[in-house]
């Protein structure tokens, strides 16, 4: 077996090595377990590493290779800890689910398990996926392997950091307002949010049901397609899931001839950092060199998307999180006097500050007297955001934007100001409101930190997005790997991170 670099190995190559018999699944899995042992104390991407399961199962795959063959067999994966896994605790990074042992498995996880992937563990997230930095985890702060003083993004920050740090070959995450794409961008990897409904949400602990989607975080666009292929599809257990009109194809495009790309003027007017803007402009120039044409478009209701999202998502969350009441599972407060006392103390002890904040916003927005002005209006604004996309996409094939306005920011620099944290997702939130598919790919560095490039397409255009992203990825040739350096200086609480000198 040749020495494998977990910071660079793709699933595509790993799969070929396995099929050719150059490496066993147990050896491949050990590469990741060794890397976890080496860097996890600094990165803290996992809430739980399933060492024994990974070692045993990979050996089983090797031993029963004839019976356990398949496109993903033996490839190790990390799973965000908001997807339930039978027999492995699932916490949602919340105290309220501290010891929760699921009795069933999420469909998306079941699909990869059935194809004999090796689960390495469950990754950290913002509590119940509410956040953009993974700092809202009740258990630990995950550090960005490109600079340990910065955040990995969120809420799938554990999954993104694990892949970037070579602690996983690839990972599953979930995206409600950017929670796959934003951490992928900040960690220099690929992340895709499929069309709403493409992947079953059964077993994904619900945050905002009309927005949540599971998707891949990977080291290449090809890997993204390879994983997506096996998690999409209609699931009788999720009535909102639908079959894709065509199967997900493995991308091979090298050119972008004839591709029309729209650049929404409003997305570039939201305070994009100069370094991010420079990488974005270079990537746009590259699209044109590769035969594509880029035109400015308008999505006029962009500035209303964030306000609408911060009514709709908390409203749905406040209803979804009502189930955590200390009756059927999870934390229960000690010595409750009566039922109401139990509900209130259980929830107050179990939920962290951001989750409480969103439950409060959502409950307020849905309460008598405020419903029409808040929730009702937000749903109408959602229609306007959808119409913007429908109108724009009639004239172009794909829409391009920076994934995030800034590169990874210092841990602690935005936690005191919830609104500044919410602004991280200004370029990704409208996509969830419209239910569209979008990918983030790394397009270069700004002051040593990765910059993400987002491609958005019409509903069910996953193949178009993957082909274009694959061609672009080849042309960009993003080569740097994270250094695990630590710039050390932690910004004072409340201070906004300045552009890096």
């Amino acid at each position, binding site marked *: 077996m040749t020495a494998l670099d977990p910071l660079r190995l793709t699933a595509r190559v790993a799969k070929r090595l396995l099929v050719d018999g150059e490496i066993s699944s147990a050896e491949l899995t050990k590469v990741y377990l060794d890397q976890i042992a080496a860097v996890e104390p600094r990165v803290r991407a996992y809430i739980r590493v399933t060492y024994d399961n990974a070692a045993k199962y990979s050996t089983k795959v090797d031993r029963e290779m004839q019976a356990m063959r398949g496109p993903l067999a033996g490839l190790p994966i990390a799973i965000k800890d908001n997807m339930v896994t039978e027999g492995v605790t699932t916490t949602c990074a919340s105290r309220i689910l501290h010891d*929760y042992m699921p009795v069933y498995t999420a469909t998306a996880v079941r699909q990869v398990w059935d194809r004999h992937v090796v689960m390495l563990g469950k990754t950290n997230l913002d509590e119940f996926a509410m956040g953009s930095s993974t700092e809202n985890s009740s258990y630990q702060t995950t550090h960005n392997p490109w600079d340990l003083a910065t955040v990995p993004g969120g809420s799938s920050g554990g999954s993104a950091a694990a892949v970037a740090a070579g602690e996983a070959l690839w990972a599953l995450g979930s995206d409600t307002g950017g929670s796959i794409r934003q951490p992928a961008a900040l960690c220099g990897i690929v992340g895709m949010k499929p069309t709403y409904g493409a992947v079953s949400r059964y077993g994904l602990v619900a945050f905002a049901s009309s927005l949540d989607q599971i998707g891949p975080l990977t080291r290449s666009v090809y890997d993204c397609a390879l994983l997506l292929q096996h998690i999409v599809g209609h699931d009788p257990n999720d009535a909102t899931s639908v079959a894709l009109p065509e199967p997900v194809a493995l991308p091979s495009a090298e050119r972008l001839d004839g591709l029309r790309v729209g650049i929404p003027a409003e997305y570039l007017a939201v305070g994009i950092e100069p370094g991010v803007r420079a990488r974005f402009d270079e990537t746009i120039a590259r699209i044109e060199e590769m035969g594509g044409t880029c035109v400015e478009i308008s999505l006029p209701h962009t500035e209303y998307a964030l306000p609408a999202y911060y009514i709709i998502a908390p409203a749905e969350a406040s209803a979804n999180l009502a189930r955590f009441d200390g009756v059927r599972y999870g934390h229960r407060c000690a010595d409750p006097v009566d039922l109401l006392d139990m509900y209130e103390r259980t*929830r107050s002890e179990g939920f962290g500050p951001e989750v409480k904040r969103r439950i409060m916003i959502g409950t307020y927005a849905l309460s008598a007297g405020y419903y029409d002005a808040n929730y009702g209006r937000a749903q109408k604004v959602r229609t306007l955001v*959808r119409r913007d996309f429908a109108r724009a996409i009639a004239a172009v094939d794909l829409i391009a934007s920076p994934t995030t306005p800034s590169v990874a920011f210092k841990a602690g620099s935005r936690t005191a100001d919830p609104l500044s944290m919410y602004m991280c997702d200004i370029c990704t939130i409208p996509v969830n409101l419209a239910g569209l598919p979008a990918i983030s790919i790394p397009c270069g560095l700004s002051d040593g930190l990765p910059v993400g490039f987002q491609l958005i397409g019409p509903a069910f255009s996953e193949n178009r997005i993957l082909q274009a992203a694959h061609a672009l990825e080849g042309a960009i040739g993003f080569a740097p790997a994270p250094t695990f350096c630590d710039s050390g200086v932690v910004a004072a609480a409340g201070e906004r991170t300045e552009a890096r000198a």
Partner: protein
Amino acid sequence: MIGEDDVRYVAKLARLRLEQDEVARMAGELAKILAHIDKMSELDVADVPPTAHVLDVVNVTRPDKPRPGLSREDALRNAPAVSDDCFRVPRMG
């Protein structure tokens, strides 16, 4: 726009018990967030239909045939308190 009394009222609806310092902090934070959200009031949406869901899904049905569900043992496995194969809760107030 939103004061401490509103925060206490909403917390009661949400079954959250907030300490006084949390009430004060929450009032300030919610006021700031709701002020941002109020930007939506600039738009005339009188004739715009609401979007509850992005897919044009209609009711999904399946044949009404009995099939195994969660076993009682599994259903109770994570319960904080169980008695006589039921979830045990404290008395009503």
